[in-house]
């Protein structure tokens, strides 16, 4: 049976008072042509006269091996086991959980139980958040941060009770915790149905189409400019900007393709990790070193670039060129040399929450066996803290890309569309608690061929 034939299931989570029942009733009363079977928690109160509403106690069953990642919802297995015999009566399933539920066991049920996974497919996890109270809830309970971490869609509800500034701050906090989620603002749970149903949320292409940079790692610099320079003396001229100093790495022989830019960025990340050498205006900029330009003085400040033979120079700067109106000037002609290529990067910033996202993006192929060993070890050691995994991988020798998705330590890897002319690369996102980004990236790098 292919995915197309399986019945999609949406899981609806959120704290008490976040508006789940309102959203559920909205979905059920709207004309969308779907016949939805609803599995409601024991306290649920769907007020609509609708064909298939089944109440279920939340029975969370742990396995004898004690592994929390194998924990499933026994009641769902029974209820869905019966529903699968009534396929002609419905074509969609919505599972509503109680406010305190851990979404893990619900999601895991669709991976762990063969009978269920052969008939149903998890379409997405929708978490409702009460904009006025989530800040406190996140501080107080693990469940609320897990519900945020698991979400494919976060409905930021009751926005009418909160100022726009507070909403922006909240949204960036939630985004930090879960970078692959889609955040929708709503009043009174009023959201377009297509934003919560039939998401194919596990389909990464969808997410990438929506936010092409969501997989991007964060860098200690915001901008790169590549300049084509002849052998000569140049000045890097900066005006006043937002900061009295700025870090920079200059790389010689910088290529302009996306792949070369990313390689340069990786080298620069390593250099940025070293202590910076301070340069005063008038000093010469060395190549391949982390330097810190002193920009306290008023007016224009110039630093020197010496080029001995024609090359392309990449400047990886902490801030964007625009912020300091930064220019490269050929000294003898006093002529500005524009950059050939520029690239903006996702800037690093502080993360306050324990729950966060890690992205790994690498060009090239991986060795399937090495990857399996690494993923296996990672998930068995950290599975409890890794809530969601999504991504695609390029296996050496395989013409199709491999799609990964997982919940805790359960994951599936399936061949997807052919790579064709697309450059082969790997993109993975992990959402979890207290994850060590560096360690995971290094682990992944060892799987590359």
């Amino acid at each position, binding site marked *: 049976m292919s995915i197309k034939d399986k019945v999609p299931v949406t899981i609806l989570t959120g704290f008490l008072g976040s508006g789940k029942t309102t959203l559920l009733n909205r979905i059920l009363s709207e004309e969308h042509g779907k016949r939805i079977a609803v599995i409601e928690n024991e306290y649920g109160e769907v007020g609509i006269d609708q064909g298939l509403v*089944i*109440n279920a*106690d939340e*029975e969370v*069953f*742990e*396995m*004898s*091996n*004690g592994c929390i990642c*194998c924990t*499933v919802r*026994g*009641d769902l*297995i*029974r209820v869905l086991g*019966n529903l699968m*015999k*009534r396929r002609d009566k419905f074509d969609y399933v919505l599972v509503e959980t109680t406010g305190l539920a851990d979404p893990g066991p619900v999601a895991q049920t669709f991976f762990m*139980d*063969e*009978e269920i996974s052969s008939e149903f497919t998890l379409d997405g996890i929708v978490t409702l958040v009460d904009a006025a109270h989530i800040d406190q809830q996140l501080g107080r309970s693990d469940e609320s941060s897990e519900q945020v971490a698991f979400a494919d869609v976060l409905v930021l509800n009751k926005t009418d009770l909160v100022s726009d500034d507070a909403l922006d701050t909240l949204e960036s906090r939630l985004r930090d915790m879960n970078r692959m989620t889609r955040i929708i603002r709503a009043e009174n749970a009023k959201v377009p149905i297509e934003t919560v149903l039939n998401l194919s949320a596990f389909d990464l292409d969808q997410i990438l189409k929506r936010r092409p940079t969501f997989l991007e790692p964060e860098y200690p610099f915001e901008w790169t400019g590549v300049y084509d320079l002849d052998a000569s003396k140049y000045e890097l001229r900066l005006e006043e900007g937002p900061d009295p100093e700025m870090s920079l790495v200059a790389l010689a022989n910088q290529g302009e393709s996306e792949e070369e830019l990313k390689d340069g960025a990786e080298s620069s990340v390593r250099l940025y990790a070293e202590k910076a050498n301070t340069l005063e205006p008038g000093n010469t900029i060395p190549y391949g070193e982390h330097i810190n330009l002193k920009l306290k003085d008023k007016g224009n400040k110039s630093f020197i670039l010496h080029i001995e033979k024609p090359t392309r120079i990449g400047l990886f700067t902490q801030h964007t060129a625009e912020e300091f109106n930064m220019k490269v000037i050929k000294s003898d002609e006093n002529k500005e040399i524009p950059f050939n290529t520029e690239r903006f990067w996702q800037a690093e910033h502080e993360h306050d929450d324990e729950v966060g996202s890690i992205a790994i993006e690498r060009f090239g192929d991986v060795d399937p066996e090495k990857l399996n060993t690494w993923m296996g070890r990672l998930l068995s050691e950290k599975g409890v803290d890794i809530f969601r995994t999504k991504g695609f991988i390029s296996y050496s020798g395989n013409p199709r890309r491999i799609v990964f998705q997982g919940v805790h330590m359960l994951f599936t890897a399936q061949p997807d569309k052919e790579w064709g002319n697309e450059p082969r690369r790997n993109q993975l996102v992990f959402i979890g608690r207290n994850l060590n980004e560096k360690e995971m990236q290094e682990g992944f790098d060892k799987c590359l061929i």
Partner: protein
Amino acid sequence: MPDIEPFSPRGMFHEGWKAEVSDYAIACGWALKGKQFIVGDVAGGIFAFEGDTGKIIWEKENTHSGGLLAMAIHPDGEIFATSGQDGNVQIWNCQEGKVIKTLNLGKGWVEHLKWSKDGLFLAIASSKKVYVFNEIGEEKWISNDHPSTVSAITWSNKNELATACYGRVTFFDIVNNKTNQKLEWQGSLVSMELSPDGDIVACGSQDNSVHFWRRSTGMDAEMTGYPGKPSHLAFDDSGKLLATSGSERITVWSFIGNGPEGTMPGELCHHTEPISSLAFSNKGMLVASGSRDGSVVASFLKNDGNGDPVGAAFAGDLVGAISWRPDDCALAAVNAKGVVNVWKFKVRTNLFSKGFK
């Protein structure tokens, strides 16, 4: 060559009859000593056919609003019970299809029904409670709440009922309202069967294992390595063999000698998709299996649990339930499309010969 049996078992499915019910058939059974065959579908339709010809005798639709969940035919074959999502249990007369009694147990699903072997009691499981009624629908006993929804019930003897739920099997003396024994195991028990003498308790667990207990010695064992959860279990009438399945394979444990601990089980690999129903013949070591792929196979087993197929047929779609006629001379399979197939079955062995009239 002493290994070769001089007379290997032979059997065959002969054409019987075919009929249809309205929806996905989930339960079936023989009544009136094989003269009648009753089928229940998921929507709540109940149909009685003539056992020999398949001619419809009576039919009822919408017997349980929300749908049917279980059906059990009384050992004497004169009455049967049904239960459903409406929280009701109905006791019916087989002959005319008349409801003798309707019991309402609340709003929870009523998922399991079992008559005691002597037919004096009907055990009913609904959510976390188990109820016992007598044949005419008088309440005799109610359990306290179990720690989770009761997943299986079965009678261990005249007055003793076994229940399985998450983490435990409990034995209740329902006449003296006593708990006789509790067997604990941290796992979600999804199926339970007892050996005919009531000593061996076998449970399939959600973690893809089968757990056994021997009540007389208190010994227990866990059989792991199943590819899926073993939802289907069946003992033969002598209690020597336990057939189990959680995939397209059937694993048969032999309790002869010191087994099954430390022994290799028998394996039957006849189906291409997971088993959806499993039943031993009423007498002898013949096991019939139905699969999601629609195939039905009867296998004749040896003492070590291995065996050979002695007949096979195609039921057309996922096999919802199978049932041997009380004389084992016919096998019925009902499927997900509501099709009922009854084959005449004939088998000859060097041990017994039947079916040839």
